[in-house]
């Protein structure tokens, strides 16, 4: 067989790729989902808000890269999620709020990733993470039109998830156990100096591919807390959860950190990690810290990937098939 080397594609093609990446039929379904989302939250008295895409600060998370643009000669970040603005609304007394937001993350591109995508993000004062998980299930059920009986939803801690699939304990750094596991499966872990990174690799390469059904994973390690509160009884874990459906990560939520000093420390620590990794430093959102200082109510919040849920529900082969267009993929 002639190897597929030096293949340059169909050069005779004169199509400029003007067509949408999604079918019109899909776009009708997407529009119906947006209507359902609005009635879902209207029925629950959750206010729709619409915060700016641009901000003069962003998240410091070392694994999320913000895009920058210039306006009137000054640099602004494109939001990686509407979280910081939405929490400022909570501090200003908005009560429960939701938003359907376009968000931007540099460097994320693949079957499940597009640098621009849509999040459904909402905040529920007085909810704990488990109440919010149940509301996520209800919305997923509403949108996909599938009954999701509570007994079919699995709830696992991060530790349980890893123990079930690998026998490894992710909470305790143990490189020889990891190496033994990799050797037994003939795998090579590309991360050998950063335990959380190695766990990310295990999750993505070994565990997610075999996960089935709806699984809520919670009690993430404190080092992966992001903007979540730590557990009062066990400060090694954060009150953060993720929803996986058939191994695809669909939603990320947490009981929000409300302590301004702790939040400031995390921003600084994450910027130090960025510096050590040679990544650009991110301007810390002083206005957001100001809001935390003024006080936000005890709240749980979550972001759900709308495009991915559509992709899964309609069995599309690429996330951009759930979007009208993407300048980042060639459409032929």
């Amino acid at each position: 067989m002639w190897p597929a080397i030096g293949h340059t594609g169909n050069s005779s093609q004169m199509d400029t790729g003007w067509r949408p990446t999604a079918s019109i039929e899909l776009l009708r379904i997407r529009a119906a989902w947006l209507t359902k989302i609005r009635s879902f939250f209207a029925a629950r008295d959750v206010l729709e808000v619409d915060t700016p895409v641009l901000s003069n600060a962003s998240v410091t998370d070392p694994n999320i890269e913000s895009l920058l643009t210039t306006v009137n000669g000054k640099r602004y970040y494109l939001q990686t999620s509407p979280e910081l603005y939405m929490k400022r609304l909570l501090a200003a007394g908005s009560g429960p709020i939701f938003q359907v937001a376009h968000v931007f993350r540099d460097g994320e591109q693949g079957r499940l990733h597009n640098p621009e995508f849509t999040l459904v993000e909402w905040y529920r004062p007085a909810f704990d993470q488990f109440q919010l998980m149940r509301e996520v299930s209800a919305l997923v059920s509403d949108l996909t039109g599938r009954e999701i009986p509570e007994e079919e939803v699995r709830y696992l801690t991060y530790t349980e998830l890893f123990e079930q699939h690998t026998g490894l304990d992710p909470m305790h750094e143990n490189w020889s156990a990891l190496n033994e596991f990799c050797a037994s499966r003939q795998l090579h872990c590309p991360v050998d100096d950063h335990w959380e990174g190695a766990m990310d690799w295990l999750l993505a390469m070994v565990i997610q591919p075999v996960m089935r059904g709806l699984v809520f994973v919670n009690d993430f390690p404190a080092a992966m807390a992001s903007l979540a509160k730590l557990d009062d009884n066990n400060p090694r874990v954060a009150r953060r959860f993720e929803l996986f459906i058939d191994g695809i990560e669909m939603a990320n939520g947490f009981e929000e950190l409300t302590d301004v000093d702790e939040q400031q420390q995390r921003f600084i620590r994450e910027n130090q990690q960025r510096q050590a990794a040679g990544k650009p430093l991110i301007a810390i959102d002083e206005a957001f810290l100001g809001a935390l200082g003024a006080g936000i109510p005890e709240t749980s919040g979550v972001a759900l990937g709308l495009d991915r849920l559509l992709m899964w529900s309609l069995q599309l082969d690429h996330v951009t098939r759930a979007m009208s267009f993407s300048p980042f993929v060639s459409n032929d």
Partner: protein
Amino acid sequence: MASYSTSEFKSGLKIMLDGEPYNIVENEFVKPGKGQAFNRVKVKNLKNGRVIEKTFKSGEKVDGADVMDTTMQYLYSDGEYWHFMDEATYEQVQADAMAVGDSSQWLKEQDTCNVILWDGVPISVEPPNFVNLTVTETDPGLKGDTAQGGVKPATLETGAVVRVPLFIEIGDLLKIDTRTGEYVSRAKE
């Protein structure tokens, strides 16, 4: 040689891994939402054709492989090397048994082959998908036994042995699919 970051990975890109040239067959970006990003790739070793899976941390860099895909005419074999000529530049290269591998049994002089060069040296030779070769040896066909799918072995001018219908005789020119090593039909000169 240029080096490539994982963000430039795509199928068809030739890279160096552990000192050997590989072709990227498949590339998938994977990333836990708040975690480290990875590229999972399937790569084919251009020397032995083996496909392996490998994961890179996103942002890692690898060296490109100086690999060229060329179309060359097969000239002759001197017993040790197979000689080819670039149809565009008339440059000549010689391929050793390692590079030619099983393809040697389908190589007929003046046929156009796909030759992969690494640092200017052939590392893989692919014959055309179909070649016409003459039968040099086969048992005599049985008269009247032209139907019913009976087969027998036949040796071709290159030394290859293929299974052919019973009516095939010595001196017949046959069209062979080199990808499967199967007889297709009788061919005209």
